[in-house]
């Protein structure tokens, strides 16, 4: 046993004034009596009888000295060294990613990790504080700089694992930030080490607590489909993350009906790819692994794919041949490109067969088709009242095209506009459109809704800028095409990872969207001018979308879509617990527990003090004395004589 504040032991000298006070208190009241003869006889009897006499007389003093001793001990804060990982302030990173759902340790890795964190909480001593961060796709602070052990235990017990892919760099950055307030704080990573790549170096000391034992896991690492002549072709990748060869049964079903089952033997650390053809139409295709006992992670044993439901997007470009545009559109999937010359006007009925019509440096027609439109440097005649009913004005060209403002808009997602130079642009005034990119002289890019159609406007000719030479160009065109084709409903038609949000792009007639989750729960949102984002994709399975118009009924058949969320991530599926973490250039191995911790004993001393204090009070009031020894002696004498 040692003391945290041994100087407090000096308070033990308070015993001296206590004894002095006691002696003062014992200056007895003098009482004159006729004779002390009998009293003296009495005392002689008693002193002969009880060797406790002297002690008994000072029982209260002894108790008070005991109380003082215990209090001084408590103040000196004695402790027993206990085995602990660390001491002082700590930031705990609790891995809540999908790999922690592996059941190679009973009940699962996440529960073991929670137990480890609870042990850390128990080891927390004195005024040390703990911050707990659960690491998921976005790190989540469960408890911030708290000394409240019940609270810390509760947040740990309440923590739920997710199927997400952990964002370790973000979590470490957050942890490093959390250590700023502390002195000598340490970061404790409770994880199976399923971390992709190397982590950036951080200044704080890091301790790694490993959970997990085995690496055996079979996963569907890829599932995709593409249409073929008379059905769908499905590509399936199955990976064995364990070291040994495993046998597994692959079940394939379409729209809930089992269509095929195969027995596969997959060597350790290898992936087997196979294709399978589903005749006819199928809306949902599911692959499932079964029949292997040593598959410790079950969430990656099922995968779904939703075959493409839409036909190609038909795009008409009106104007002179523009190689930049044609190239950009030709590399996009599901796009069918048509061109028309401005000199050969098309009939309105013909034009309305296209999903998107691009007017490239041509005068706008008198009547606009109902399709969604894109204008590139529209030649608007000056002084003409309203061209084609579109309220667009031009003030001629401007050349001061330095960009002053770029809006945050889905159209500009991943578009780097910084290196784009424009020679000249058309100074347009479009009251119903939003300026996305503004230059000093006027807008460069606008978007807006006009009479039930979406319109995007680029105010400069592609030839007048170096935009087509930038990497931003195909991205911009793809974004604009996405925005102009709301019928596809989703930004990404392929399967998502759990927890990744998805941006919905309803068409203009929809006012409300409902998403039915795999477990049947409904999620509903109103559609406003801002992009609608659905982030509750924590479950794996197929999500169903329904758009509703103002009247409440389904607006159109094709506005009902589906998307699949699959846990097919090689980092999370690879549940092999790592022996060490590499952070920066430092290899951090698993930490052992040693006698770093301190179990403070002062609460016990306080409890004993309270007990003795109550005893002292009781004795003082009851005038209790120690038991008479004479009874005991009588008893002994009887036994002796017998």
């Amino acid at each position, binding site marked *: 046993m040692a003391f945290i504040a041994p100087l407090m032991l000096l308070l033990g000298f308070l015993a001296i004034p206590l004894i002095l006070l006691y002696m003062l208190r014992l200056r007895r009241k003098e009482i004159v*009596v*006729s*004779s002390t003869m009998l009293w003296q006889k009495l*005392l002689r009897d008693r002193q002969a009888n009880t060797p406790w006499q002297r002690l008994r007389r000072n029982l209260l003093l002894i108790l008070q000295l005991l109380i003082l001793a215990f209090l001084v001990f408590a103040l000196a804060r004695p402790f027993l060294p206990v085995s602990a990982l660390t001491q002082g302030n700590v930031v705990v990173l609790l891995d809540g990613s999908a790999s922690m759902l592996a059941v190679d340790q009973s009940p699962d890795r996440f529960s073991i990790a929670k137990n480890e964190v609870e042990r850390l909480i128990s080891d927390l001593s004195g005024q040390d504080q703990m911050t707990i961060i659960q690491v998921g796709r976005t790190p989540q602070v469960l408890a911030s700089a708290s000394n409240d052990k019940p609270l810390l235990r509760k947040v740990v017990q309440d923590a739920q694992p997710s199927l997400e892919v952990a964002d370790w760099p973000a979590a470490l950055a957050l942890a490093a930030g959390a250590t700023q307030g502390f002195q000598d704080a340490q970061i404790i990573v409770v994880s199976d080490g399923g971390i992709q790549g190397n982590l950036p170096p951080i200044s704080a000391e890091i301790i790694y607590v490993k959970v997990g034992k085995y690496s055996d896991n079979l996963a569907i690492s890829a599932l995709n489909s593409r249409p073929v002549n008379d059905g769908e072709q499905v590509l399936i990748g199955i990976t064995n993350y364990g070291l040994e060869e495993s046998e597994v049964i692959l079940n394939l079903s379409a729209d809930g009906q089992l269509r095929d089952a195969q027995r596969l033997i997959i060597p350790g650390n290898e992936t087997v790819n196979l294709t399978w053809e589903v005749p006819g139409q199928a809306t949902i295709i599911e692959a499932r692994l079964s029949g292997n006992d040593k598959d410790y992670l079950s969430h990656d044993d099922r995968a779904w794919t939703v075959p493409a439901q839409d036909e190609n997007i038909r795009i008409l470009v009106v104007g002179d041949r523009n190689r930049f545009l044609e190239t950009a559109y030709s590399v996009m999937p599901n796009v069918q490109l048509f061109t028309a010359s401005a000199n050969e006007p098309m009939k309105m009925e013909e034009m309305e067969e296209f999903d998107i019509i691009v007017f490239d440096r041509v005068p706008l027609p008198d009547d606009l088709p109902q399709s969604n439109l894109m204008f590139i440097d529209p030649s608007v005649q000056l002084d003409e009242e309203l061209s084609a009913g579109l309220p667009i004005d031009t003030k001629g060209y401007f050349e001061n095209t330095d960009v002053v403002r770029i809006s945050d808009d889905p159209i500009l997602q991943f578009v780097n506009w910084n290196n784009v130079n424009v020679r000249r642009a058309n100074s347009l005034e479009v009251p119903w459109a939003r300026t996305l990119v503004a230059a000093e002289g006027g807008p460069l890019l606008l978007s807006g809704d006009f009479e039930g159609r979406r319109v995007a406007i680029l105010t400069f000719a592609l030839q007048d800028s170096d935009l087509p030479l930038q990497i931003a160009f195909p991205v911009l065109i793809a974004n604009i095409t996405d925005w102009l084709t709301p019928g596809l409903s989703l930004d990404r038609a392929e399967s998502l990872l759990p927890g990744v949000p998805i941006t919905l792009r309803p068409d203009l007639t929809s006012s409300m969207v409902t998403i039915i989750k795999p477990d049947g729960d409904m999620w509903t949102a109103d559609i406003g001018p801002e992009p609608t984002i659905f982030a509750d994709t924590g479950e794996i399975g197929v999500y169903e979308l329904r758009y509703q118009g103002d009247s409440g009924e389904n607006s159109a058949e094709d506005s009902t879509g589906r998307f699949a969320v699959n846990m097919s991530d090689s980092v999370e599926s690879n549940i092999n617990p790592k022996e060490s973490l590499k952070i920066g250039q430092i290899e951090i191995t698993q930490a052992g527990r040693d006698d770093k911790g301190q179990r403070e004993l002062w609460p016990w001393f306080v409890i004993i003090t309270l007990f003795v204090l109550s005893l002292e009070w009781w004795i003082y009031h009851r005038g209790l004395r120690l038991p008479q020894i004479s009874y005991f002696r009588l008893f002994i004498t009887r036994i002796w004589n017998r």
Partner: protein
Amino acid sequence: MVTFDDETLRKLEQLSLVAERVQMGNMKGDRRSRKHGSSVEFADFRSYSQGDDLRQLDWNIYARLGKPFIRLLEEEEDLSIYILLDSSDSMDWPLEVPDTNKFRYASQLAAALGYIALASGDRLTVSQFGEKKTRTWGAYRGGQNAMRLLEFLEKKPSGGVFDLNKSLRDFAIRGNRPGLLFLISDLFFPDGFRKGLNALLAKGHEVNLIHLLTPDEVNPPLAGDVKLVDVESGKDMEISLDSTILDRYSHRLDRWKGEIASFSRNRGIHYVPVTTSIPWERLVLHSLRAQRIVK
């Protein structure tokens, strides 16, 4: 200090002190002899002492020798009564409560017993033992001396600390006639009293031991941590008092009284323990009569 109302006096006059074994005196008294076979005739002369009946004076001898002598007759006898008062400091207790003051009580008792003795014609000697000297009154006879007895008892004794054994031995050695002896004391003598009593018994006295204790000595009204100071010796002792120790005191006191009673019984001493809260009239008129010390 010691006064008797008429009623009490009338009652006291009807009483006499009982001696069972002690030899009668050689002078005629009001007391009938228990001796058998003696005729009514002259027995002896003895010197006149104050209070003697002048009718008994032998005027012929007075004429011849010039000294008064009393003729003693055989058929009636007198009895020597001795009342020994302990006047040590412990007897003057409690100081604040005169009603239960032991010395005052002892004086009243002595006055009552003395009056009975004088009234029945016995020869009475009263001694007060003190540290410096022993005050003695008597021997006198006859009721006419009652006032002088009261005057004697009213005087404050010298008090102090003394050895009862020594005082009693001195009294025995002084060669008084054996008689009926009352010792009134609280018996608070560190060296005891047994040797003195034995000396008195050896001399042939019939001893009545009246043991006075005050109520606060029987049940001390004390508690807590106190320092007890002996009023006689001035010695102090520290003691922590609680109910247990007070119980033990009570037991110890009973045991002490039991020891004295047992000692007295073995030697034919009448032991009368008295708490001074009992009125002295009741003690004399009832308790002592019940114990056949007076009749």
